[in-house]
């Protein structure tokens, strides 16, 4: 299979690989996919005042999956949570010129962003509850 130049670039030089401490209140973690499907993405965001100030990822998956998640971390940085939620997988497909068989890799990246934001929001709720009851 031939990969687009952008996929190869992200594969060779992935942006924002790494991990934040999961328990940090500022951090939201999205873990999507399954090993038996051949793809698992972990995408983490660091949030200050509803704004994503940093993002990191780790991906087990094909080159297109690595590129999709790498691109996703670039795109969410600097966005508000609501702006990040609006990112569509079709935009990733277009940016990376993914062929039809690789569309699910971009879907996974969109899901990972959403899961990370959801996790962050849930953790804010529980931590504000615990402060309220304290």
């Amino acid at each position, binding site marked *: 299979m031939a990969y687009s130049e952008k996929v190869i670039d992200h594969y060779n030089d992935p942006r924002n690989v790494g991990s934040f401490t999961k328990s940090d209140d500022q951090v939201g973690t999205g873990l999507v996919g399954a090993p038996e499907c051949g793809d*698992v993405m972990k995408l983490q965001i660091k949030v200050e005042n509803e704004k994503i100030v940093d993002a990191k990822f780790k991906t087990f998956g094909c080159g297109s999956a690595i590129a999709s998640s790498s691109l996703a971390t670039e795109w969410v940085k600097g966005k508000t949570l609501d702006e990040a939620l609006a990112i569509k997988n079709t935009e990733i497909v277009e940016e990376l010129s993914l062929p039809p068989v690789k569309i699910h890799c971009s879907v996974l990246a969109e899901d990972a962003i959403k899961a990370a934001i959801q996790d962050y929001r849930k953790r804010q709720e529980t931590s504000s509850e615990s402060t309220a009851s304290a």
Partner: protein
Amino acid sequence: MKFPIYLDYNATTPTDPRVVEAMMPYFTQTYGNAASRNHQFGWEAEQAVEKARDLLGETIGGGGREIVLTSGATESNNLAILGAADFYKEKGRHIITSPIEHKAVIDPCQALEQRGYDVTFLDVDDDGCISLEQLEKSIRPDTILVSLMAGNNEIGTLNPLEEIGKITRKHGVLFHTDATQAVGKIPLDVEQMNIDLLSFTAHKMYGPKGVGALYVRRKRPRVRLSPIMFGGGHERGMRSGTLNVPGIVGFAKALELCRDEMESEAERQTALRERLHQRLQAELDHIKLNGHPTQRLPNNLNVSFGYVEGESLIMGISDIAVSSGSACTSASLEPSYVLRALGVGDDLAHSSIRFGVGRFTTEEEIDYTADKMIFAVKRLRDMSPLYEMVQEGIDLSTVNWTPH
């Protein structure tokens, strides 16, 4: 070193220049139709074919008159299975095979199931080995054929042909073996092994693509087959179609070279395979050999690299040509059915790479490949959420995954 490095000799092989040379005159000079009985062009072509046929038959312990020339092992397998099933249908309609056969065996068997035949797929263990007891127990009065391959194309595991042949002969059942990966690499003898039908192909042994053969036993017992291709009645009515004379000449030359170099090449290629395996094992954790550790084709190594996905791994070694059992390389998004049948988890099946070494593989190429693999696996593991979780002591089977 020349790049890319070819390490996919189980998929196909380059045609040896000595084979090409032997073929050349049959394109432009001796171009007759081997079935033309009225002139010298035809006679010469026929002579060349008969000489090739003898070599092909005798090398596997049979005779030239027991060779049916075909377009390759896919056709040979189809002819053996469909042809025997049809010819012996009054005797019975039960066939025994295994789940890790090549698709060119499994698909015709499944087509027969659709037509009312009964097919038993034997169990295979973690190494891809069948049980001889289960084989013998599976034979019924209506069993007509056992089809079990010589060496597996993905994982390299060899079947105990001689023991299988003893059982099939004892019960009066035909024994077909798809020996595509084994002929020219390991000793095979249809007499000693009681093989009745044997498929092989030129392009896996440094011959041209598109030519193969089916050995069909002529005595003790005489095996009969219904044709699957009808026409001019070539190949004693079993396979019609004008013979591919240059291809057949090349096929015989290729087998002759493999035969003459077999012992030393098997030893050399096994050493190369082991050298690669040992390097990988020494420098990487969580790797798993697929297939039997010793009962395997000399040129095949199949390894799963835990927590990295096969396609991304192949991308990381883009100057080395190998094959992956991963989902993502095929449009079907299914991991290898062979690894699945061995009980390899889908996660490890997605992480498997098949290395096939061959006549032109050098030690230098193997060392380069080992370095490159080790680097790529380490890099991808730094990027792998699964490897990270395992390092943290998380049991991946307890994680609530979201399959899609």
